[in-house]
């Protein structure tokens, strides 16, 4: 019978699980039959050769390129960028809100829905309609109206005609007719000016009234929407004379 040499490990039972666990743990006190395996495993985890460390420069270059920036600088850059974006976002939001508010205010102003002082301001600034106000009584300074005195105011409305240099109709002719009428009619220039200021601001044709006829009192009962400042300015015959308004009588 041939003597066939048999490996000592041919029988699997020669190696126990504990031996294998010890091998994997790197322990050298294993069964004598496993010592060559222990040598193999030790060779697998031997110290590195120079060839295995040759790629360090390449890896470091990649590290430098992608992650070499110090954290503080990177955070600073990121925080600056974030601040900028946050600021720009805030600025954009603020601008949008401001535009919304201004647009709404302008719309309200042109709809004549603002409180009287603000409406007057809007009238001055953007030419919105005049501020509404309660009908004002006849000025205390005015004398009792006599026939002919108010006739000029009666014509105030019927002969409306825009004129002047401004494009806004409400800024034209406020008080001009009254002023003129007052001066031309019965000399109540003071009151006539006041009436014109309180009128609805519809320009009238100066001199259209019929002296001596009873007026309708419309000018006196005006709703007072006119801009007192503008009307005062335009109603001033001297001012209109300076503007060269042909309807303004020349000073004598």
């Amino acid at each position, binding site marked *: 019978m041939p003597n066939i040499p048999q490996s000592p490990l041919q029988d699997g039972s020669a190696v126990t699980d504990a031996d294998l666990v010890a091998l994997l743990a790197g322990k050298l006190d294993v069964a004598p039959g496993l010592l060559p395996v222990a040598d*193999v495993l030790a060779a697998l*985890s031997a110290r590195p050769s120079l060839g295995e460390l040759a790629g360090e420069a390449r890896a470091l270059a990649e590290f430098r390129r992608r992650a070499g920036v110090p954290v503080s600088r990177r955070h600073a850059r990121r925080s600056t960028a974030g601040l900028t974006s946050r600021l720009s976002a805030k600025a954009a939001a603020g601008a949008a809100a401001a535009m919304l508010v201004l647009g709404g205010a302008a719309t309200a102003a042109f709809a004549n829905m603002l409180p009287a002082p603000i409406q007057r301001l809007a009238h001055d600034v953007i030419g919105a309609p005049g501020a509404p106000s309660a009908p004002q009584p006849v000025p205390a300074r005015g004398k009792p109206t006599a026939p002919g005195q108010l006739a000029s105011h009666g014509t105030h409305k019927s002969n409306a005609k825009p004129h002047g240099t401004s494009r806004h109709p409400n800024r034209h002719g406020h008080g001009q007719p009254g002023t003129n009428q007052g001066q031309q009619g019965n000399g109540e220039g003071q009151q006539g000016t006041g009436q014109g200021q309180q009128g609805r601001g519809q320009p009238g044709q100066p001199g259209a009234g019929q002296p001596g006829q009873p007026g309708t009192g419309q000018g006196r009962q005006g709703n007072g929407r006119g801009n007192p400042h503008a009307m005062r300015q335009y109603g001033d015959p001297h001012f209109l004379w300076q503007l060269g308004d042909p309807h303004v009588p020349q000073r004598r």
Partner: protein
Amino acid sequence: MINEEFASLLAAAQGGSEAAFSRLWRDVNPALLRYLRVIAPGAEEDLAAETWVQVVRGLRSFRGDEQAWRAWLFTTARRRAIDLARHRSRRPEAPLDDVAVAQLPRTEDSAEVALEHLSTAAAIALVSGLPRLQAEVILLRVVAGLDTESVARLLTKSPGAVRVAAHRGLRRLAQLTADTGVTL
């Protein structure tokens, strides 16, 4: 393995310290190359470099201990090797010329180191003769220093399957060394 210093080294590397990153690289790269030499022979250098590129990209967001760090590296390397194998299967290449062993650059002149590397190369050759799963398990357990659970996650196997593969691989290695009379 770096052990206690690992956390501080990782934090420093994540903060941009080249020295810390170099230390981490030197600790893992040899094991990475040995592992890749078994699962993707001939492409280990390129795959290791690609692995490190990917690791550097995700370095700042990495959180974990040294086991997790090594598991991440070897998982990345394994995926790169699988990608390469797929690519090669789609576009097979035939090398034009083989470089003679005598022409390979030799930078080590120490006889002891040469013998050591020779034994390392022989050990890698022996392990390469094992079935793929057994070879991978032994390399990941011994070379990469991963525990059974980490290897199981990496290979998407159960821990029991990993243990069985490790034991079978070791038995097979023992048989091979006994049969061939290999001494390292």
